[in-house]
């Protein structure tokens, strides 16, 4: 039966229901040593409530994949500060206020794998799409290609890159339904759709649960097949202000 379950937790239920009652329930089974893909670019699309719940859940020795390495002391930075992260794979860990990462990095307490942004995104796409590896011209001849296989293709140097999948993806969407279909809002979409496809267990936080059929099928961005759990969180004006200030 498992073969037919797709990204569902509960078998033999009368209907598919990926909606879970709380962020705690959504993250209950995250294990130590997991690779966790976390959406967001700047303050937009950060699944902040899920990250807070992950800190409370307590999983350790995590590998985190994110565009940045956190800023100030919320979100990914709070996770780093709590000492839960062994390694971060990201594109831009140097922000004005990324002091939590910087202190850990300089103390040798966190491993950094720096990846060009498009390569990071494409590596996750490859993981989600079942692609074994790919050649990209990005980073050819630079320090970030050191030690990697290269090949000339149509006269242009390319670098071999491997897929990057996660055990868990945490994404923020605007609305979701019980089949796990998701729509996003403006530039908060960013890494969400790709990360959703690239993890074994994808958890989406949404501001609104839509009735099945209420999301326009022509406009669904992430089809439910890529999503394991959907959890509703409250829009918090206070949190928005904190993010603005940062």
């Amino acid at each position: 039966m498992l073969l037919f379950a797709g990204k569902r937790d509960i078998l033999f239920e009368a209907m598919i229901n990926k909606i879970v009652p709380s962020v705690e329930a959504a993250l209950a089974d995250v294990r130590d040593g997991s690779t966790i893909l976390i959406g967001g670019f700047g303050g937009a699309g950060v699944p902040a409530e899920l990250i807070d719940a992950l800190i409370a859940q307590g999983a350790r020795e995590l590998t985190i994949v994110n565009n940045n390495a956190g800023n100030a002391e919320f979100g990914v930075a709070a996770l780093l500060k709590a000492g839960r992260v062994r390694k971060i794979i990201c594109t831009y860990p140097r922000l004005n206020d990324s002091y939590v990462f910087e202190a850990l990095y300089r103390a040798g307490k966190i491993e950094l794998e720096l990846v060009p942004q498009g390569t990071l995104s494409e590596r996750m796409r490859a993981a989600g799409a079942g692609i074994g590896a790919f050649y990209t011209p990005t980073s050819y001849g630079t320090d970030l290609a050191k030690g990697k296989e290269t090949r000339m293709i149509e006269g242009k140097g390319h670098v071999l890159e491997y897929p990057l999948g996660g055990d868990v993806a945490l994404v923020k969407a605007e609305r979701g339904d019980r089949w796990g279909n998701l729509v996003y809002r403006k530039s908060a979409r960013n890494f969400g759709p790709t990360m959703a496809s690239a993890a074994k267990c994808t958890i989406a936080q949404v501001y609104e649960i839509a009735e099945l059929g209420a999301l326009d099928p022509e406009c669904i961005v992430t089809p439910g097949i890529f999503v394991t759990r959907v959890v509703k969180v409250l829009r918090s004006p206070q949190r928005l202000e904190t993010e603005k200030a940062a």
Partner: protein
Amino acid sequence: MSYAMLTREQIAARIANDIPEGAYVNLGIGMPTLVGNYLPKDREIILHSENGILGMGPAPAAGEVDMELINAGKEPVTLLTGGAYFHHTDSFAMMRGGHLDICVLGAFQVSATGDLANWSTGGDAIPAVGGAMDLAVGAKNVWVMMEHLTKEGRSKIVSRCTYPLTGIGVVKRIYTDLAVIDITPRGLVASRQVPGLSFDELQRLTGVPLLPSGARAAA
């Protein structure tokens, strides 16, 4: 003879004026972002932002800030009528796949053959690359916007970059506060020097041989 260097705003205005109607353009973080302020109002130019926006508009009015609509520099922006949102992988397909007509990037150094160094000064700074390497290899035309000289007075146009490379042979044109330099198969062609700056003086300040733009037709 004395001359005045262009301000950043003047360089930005010069670049903006060179962007044709209908172009898809990415403006890098930092100084290149200024170019957006000078785009001619009578031209439709579509700005791309790496975090999933085409048809990006200017900063919002006070009170209309939406932190889910930001640019690559994480500053609030707006969407023009006809604009679109998309996810990161599609956005970088546009960048890497040769769909952008022009990107304007800042630089620490550019070599005589168009090598670009703009992501790291080496040393012990925290390394951070973002989308710079994807833009460098992917845009049809990579234009660099930078000061001609370092604060110490050294040419930022060099025979060989000493800072870590972002891309090899990718830059087509450099806009500096002294001139415009095109990187051509024949070499570097200088034009539009600021008033009062002779070609010989520009050559003296520049670390590599230049050709005057007039020589282009003669050659």
